[in-house]
C-alpha cells in the first residue's frame, strides 16, 4: 500500500489548462474521491497519476518516489476505466489474468489469484465468457477484478460505476466500500456524482475548472463548504442561494432581503467579527433545503414568508418550491401535511445551518 502525493501539478493541452497548480496528498489506505463536474480536471489528474498523461509541470510522488517519467506499468498501479476497457478478444479469465501474465507469474499462481478475485467479486461463474456476453454490471466487476488480482500499490478508479443503472449503482457503492475495507488498499476514485463521493470516500477532493476547491472528509465538505461552488455542488436538491445584504446590528449581524430580515446567531456573528467584515456587505445567503421548518400557518418567530409554487413528493419527503419575492427556493420536509399550490407558506430557519458567501469571490464568510 502506498501514499500518493501531488506537488504543484499543472496539465496543459495546448493553451488549455486542465489542471492548475494542484497539490494534494492521498494517505496510505485512504479512499480518496476526486469530485467535480465534467471538465474540472479530475480525470486528467487521475490519468497523470496513472502515467497515461504527461505532467506539464510539478511532480507526482508514489511513496516518496517521483514518478513523473516512469511508465505506467512500472508504477505498480491498477486502474478501472469508465468504459471498463475489457479486452474484447480475450475471455473473462484471460482479461483478469492479463496483468499477471505480463508479469510472467507461474500458471498455478495465476489460476489461484484470478479465482480468488473472482470469488471476492462473485463472478466465478463468468470466467469462461467473452466480454460481449456480459451485462454492464458484470463487465464492471471483471474490470475491478482485473485491477485487484495484481495487488497493486494504488487503485485508480475512473467513474467505474457511472454507466450502471441506478439500482445497481447503489448496490455497487456498497460493494466498493466493502472491497476497500477488505483489501485495505489505497484507492483514488474519480466521480462527478456527489452521492458516490459522500457515501464512499474517506476524504473528498472537490475540483472545478482545474482548480482545487476543497479537501476534506465528507462531513467537512458538506457542512463546512469553503466556497459557494462546493456548497452548491454537494447536496440534492442543491443549496438555495439568496442574494442579500449583510448588515451590522448592534454587536451582531443581520441578513437583509427585501422579503425578510434574518438575525444571525452569536456563533456566526463571532466569526464575522473575526473576519472584520464591514458594516454592510453584499452576500449570498446559503440555505440547504433541509434547513427550514415549514408551516402553513404563521408560527412564532417566523423568519420569512413565501408562496407555494409547486410541490414534489418523494415518497417519504416532499420538496416544496417556494416563491420568495423574485427568488425561488426549494425546501425539503417530511411528508404529511397537505400543501396547497399558491397558498402562503411560513418558514423558520435553523440558525446553525446558515451559510454566507461573499457575493464577488464566492468565498465562505464563516471559515
Amino acid at each position, binding site marked *: 500500500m502506498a501514499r500518493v502525493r501531488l506537488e504543484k501539478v499543472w496539465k496543459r493541452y495546448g493553451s488549455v489548462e486542465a489542471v492548475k497548480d494542484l497539490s494534494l496528498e492521498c494517505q496510505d489506505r485512504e479512499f480518496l474521491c476526486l469530485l467535480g463536474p465534467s471538465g474540472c480536471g479530475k480525470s486528467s489528474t487521475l*490519468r497523470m497519476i*496513472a*502515467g*497515461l498523461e504527461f505532467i506539464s509541470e510539478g511532480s507526482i510522488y508514489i511513496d516518496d518516489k517521483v514518478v513523473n517519467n516512469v*511508465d*505506467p*506499468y512500472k508504477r505498480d*498501479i*491498477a*486502474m478501472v*476505466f*469508465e*468504459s*471498463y*476497457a*475489457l*479486452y*474484447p*478478444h480475450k475471455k473473462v479469465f484471460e482479461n483478469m489474468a*492479463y*496483468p499477471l501474465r*505480463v*508479469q510472467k507469474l507461474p500458471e498455478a499462481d495465476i489460476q489461484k489469484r484470478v479465482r480468488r478475485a473472482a470469488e471476492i467479486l462473485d463472478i466465478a461463474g463468468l470466467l469462461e465468457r467473452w*466480454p*460481449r456476453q456480459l451485462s454492464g454490471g458484470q463487465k464492471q466487476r471483471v474490470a475491478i477484478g*482485473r485491477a485487484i488480482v*495484481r495487488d497493486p500499490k494504488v487503485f*485508480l478508479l475512473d467513474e467505474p460505476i457511472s454507466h450502471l443503472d441506478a439500482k445497481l449503482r447503489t448496490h455497487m457503492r456498497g460493494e466498493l466500500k466493502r472491497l476497500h475495507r477488505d483489501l485495505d488498499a489505497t484507492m483514488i476514485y474519480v466521480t462527478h456524482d456527489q452521492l458516490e463521493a459522500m457515501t464512499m470516500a474517506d476524504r473528498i477532493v472537490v475540483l472545478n475548472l482545474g482548480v482545487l476547491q476543497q479537501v476534506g472528509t465528507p462531513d467537512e465538505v458538506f457542512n463546512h463548504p469553503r466556497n459557494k461552488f462546493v456548497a452548491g455542488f454537494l447536496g440534492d436538491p442543491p443549496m438555495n442561494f439568496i442574494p442579500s445584504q449583510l448588515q451590522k446590528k448592534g454587536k451582531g449581524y443581520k441578513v437583509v432581503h427585501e422579503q425578510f430580515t434574518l438575525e444571525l446567531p452569536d456563533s456566526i456573528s463571532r466569526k464575522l467579527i473575526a473576519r472584520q467584515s464591514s458594516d454592510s456587505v453584499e452576500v449570498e445567503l446559503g440555505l440547504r433545503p433541509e434547513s427550514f421548518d415549514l408551516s402553513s400557518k404563521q408560527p412564532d418567530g417566523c423568519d420569512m414568508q413565501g408562496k407555494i409554487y409547486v410541490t414534489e413528493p418523494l415518497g417519504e419527503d416532499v420538496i416544496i418550491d417556494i416563491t420568495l419575492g423574485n427568488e425561488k427556493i426549494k425546501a425539503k420536509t417530511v411528508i404529511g401535511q397537505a400543501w396547497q399550490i399558491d397558498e402562503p407558506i411560513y418558514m423558520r430557519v435553523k440558525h446553525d445551518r446558515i451559510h454566507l458567501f461573499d457575493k464577488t469571490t464566492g468565498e465562505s464568510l464563516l471559515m
Partner: protein
Amino acid sequence: MAAKSRETKAPRKAAAGAQETIVHKRTPFMRILTVVLLAVWIVWTLAPLLITALSSFKTAREAFATPTYGDWKGVWNIFRFQPTLVNFRTLFLIEGFWPYIWHGFVASIGSALIAVVMGTLGAYGLSRGKFKREGDISFWIISTRMAPAVVVIVPLYYIFRRIGLLSTLPGLIVAYTTFNLSFSLWLIKGFFDDLPVEIEEAAFVDGDSHWAVFTKVAVPLAAPGIVAAFVLCVLMSWNDFLFAAVIGGHRAKTVPVGITELRTTVEVLWGPINSATIILIIPMIALGVLIRKYLIQGLTMGAVRE
C-alpha cells in the same frame, strides 16, 4: 472497435429496418418497381462479364457471330457455341501467361505485405502519437493519392534504374508500394482511431510496454481493418497497369500488361484477350466478396463505414 460497435449495433439495426419508409411506403407497386429496376441493373452489371466469359470459350468466328440488326432471336448466338479451350491454350502455351500471373501474384502480395506492415506501424504512430505537424503529415500522405501515375513514373524510373530495381519483381513491389503505403496507412489509421484508447491504457497499466500493447492489444483489435487493407492493396496492385508496364516491364510483366500485348501489331487476339480478362478479374471478384464488409470503408480510405 468491438466495444463501440456493440453499443451502436442495436439502434443501427432498428434504423435499417425503418429506412424502408425513408422515401416511400411499401406498396406492391414499389415492390415490383424495386425488383424490376434491380433486375435491370443486375443484367447491366453482369452482361459484359457473361458475354466475355462465354466468348473466352469460343473460336473467333463464333465469338464474332452477331446476327443482323433487329434479329432478336439472334441473341441466342451468345450461347450457341462449341466450348473450346483453344484460347486458354494459346494464352498459356503460346503467349506464356503463367509467369505473368505469378509476377502479379508475387508483386501484389509482396507490396501489400510491405504496405500493411509499415502502414500498421505508421498508422498506430499517427493515430496515437501527438505530433507538431500532424495535419501536414496527414495531408501529405493523402495527397500522394492524387498524383497522376504518369508524373511519378518517369522520376521513379530513373531512381529504379540507378539502384538496379528496374524490370525486376522487387522493383515492381516497391513501385506498387508508392500507392499502397499511403493508402493502407490512411485506412488502418481509421481503424485505430475507432479503437477505444482505454483498452490500450488498461494494458499499459496492467504492465505492458508500448510494443506489447501494440502487438498484443491494438493489432488484434484492428485486425479486420488490417486484413481489409491487405486485400485492397493486393487488389489495386494486381489491377495496376501503368507501373507494371513501365517499371515492371519484361521480367516482371503482370496480367494487365500481358493483356494489352495481346493487341499485337498484326492482330487483336480477342479470344485470348477474353480468356485473360476472365483470369484477371475472377480472383479479384473473389477477394472483393471476401472483404465485402470492409470494402466501402477500404475504398473510401476509412471515411465511410458500413
